[in-house]
């Protein structure tokens, strides 16, 4: 049960232990955090199983790992390793530019990114058990996370105002299965949990995204690319719990040292935007 918690990117067992001790609800095991993937370029793939197993042995909280979009075999490998969640992630280089993995085919749950409600519901239709708004990974810029979370939440609210006759057209426009659209309209929310990812670098960022309707947070480069990961990790966990209490967020924000080296999303070329991967 990950709700209300912070999931942290880690690249080795030592970082995983720091994340666990700081109160992370899960860790995402990957070889390079998104900001390094962005810097290095080239093809980003699933991590080495040795590294994933090392992290599984180091902590008792859930361990997630990333497979490339559409890369069925990477997902099978991760399932065989008994990772707790598979992230079919736009942070890695896509393996299929038309199709995502048929996630119903797996017993391990999947988390997938989305920039809007239609994309979220297509992923749920394919069997995703958890959605995260994409943001723009590896930037430390919160603006895309806000854009995507606001888009998803506002489209959910809009569906709630439609009557039954209007839902098929809404489903067509969203490019999403009608039964899921109807469910969202009736329930006022996704049928799966909605987290936020991509750009969270400070406790205030964490509070902002929780206030905008995230049920929990993924923090990638924001922790271990900052000057004091241990403290920043604890502070973001605290801000996630006390997001509605500005005084507690203020206390959590004190003296954390430098945030990660950040990139303004707006300054990125189109082909550098990871959030555009996924269909």
């Amino acid at each position, binding site marked *: *049960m*990950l*709700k*209300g*918690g912070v999931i942290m990117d880690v690249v080795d067992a030592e970082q995983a232990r720091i994340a*666990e*001790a*700081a*109160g*992370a*609800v*899960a860790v995402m095991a990957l070889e390079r955090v998104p900001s390094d993937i962005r810097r290095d370029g080239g093809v980003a793939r699933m991590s080495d199983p040795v590294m994933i197993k090392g992290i599984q042995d180091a902590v*008792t*909280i*859930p361990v997630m790992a990333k497979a490339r979009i559409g890369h069925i075999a990477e997902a099978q490998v991760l*399932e065989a390793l*008994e*990772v*707790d*969640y598979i992230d079919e992630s736009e942070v890695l280089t896509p393996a299929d530019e038309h199709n995502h993995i048929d996630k119903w085919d797996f*017993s*391990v*749950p999947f988390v997938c990114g989305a920039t809007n409600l239609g994309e979220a519901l297509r992923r749920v239709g394919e069997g995703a058990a958890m959605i995260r708004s994409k943001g723009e990974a590896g930037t430390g810029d919160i603006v895309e996370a806000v854009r995507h979370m606001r888009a998803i939440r506002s489209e959910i609210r809009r569906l709630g105002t439609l009557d039954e006759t209007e839902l098929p057209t809404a489903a067509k426009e969203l490019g999403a299965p009608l039964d899921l659209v109807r469910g969202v309209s009736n329930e006022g929310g996704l049928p799966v949990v909605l987290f936020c990812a991509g750009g969270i670098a400070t406790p205030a960022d964490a509070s902002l995204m929780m206030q905008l309707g995230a*049920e929990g947070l993924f923090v990638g480069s924001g922790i271990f690319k900052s000057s004091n990961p241990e403290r920043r990790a*604890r502070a973001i*966990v*605290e801000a*996630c*719990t*006390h997001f509605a*209490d500005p005084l507690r967020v203020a206390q959590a924000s004190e003296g954390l040292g430098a945030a990660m080296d950040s990139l303004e999303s707006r300054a990125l070329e189109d082909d550098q935007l990871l959030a555009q991967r996924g269909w």
Partner: protein
Amino acid sequence: MLIGVLALQGGFAAHAKMLLELAADVREVRVPADLEGLDGLVIPGGESTTMTLGIEREGLGEPLRSFAKPVFGTCAGLIMLDREHLGMMDIEARRNAFGRQVRSFEADLEIEGLDGPPLRAVFIRAPWIAAHGEDVQIVAEVDGHAVAAQQGDVLAVAFHPELGSDTRLHERFLAICRGTAVAVDLADDPGWVAP
């Protein structure tokens, strides 16, 4: 009746929703002051490591241990109640006892004293009760492992009763809070009385 739901992390929102549907008032509990005036407390599922650290950070350990009202712990909440953690129940929980996420499952559970059909129970990386004192009554098992227990006015289950629409366990807990349910007394073993 005012029920607190520990809201450091985990499934607190779904518990709160279910309690509201059953006409209880609900308060999210994040700091010791939130415990004042409560008639009962739910400790939800979540990550037990995260929750343990949160309880420490907020200085909630002692106030929780001395909380004299009924308590209902679910999944990680059961772990929080055990001897190794808050010690509010004479049980020893084994974390992730059923295995990793991929071993999560649902089961139709017969719960002693609960009227009606079996309860559909969702187990997510669930613990079980590996050992317990004699004041603890085990009221449900899966494959011979204890997954639900009561000791006086403290209830604990290893699964997530807040997921789904079956409200019988929450009704049972509210009845205990109201004092209308009979607490377990092993002297004449009334069993687990439904509300």
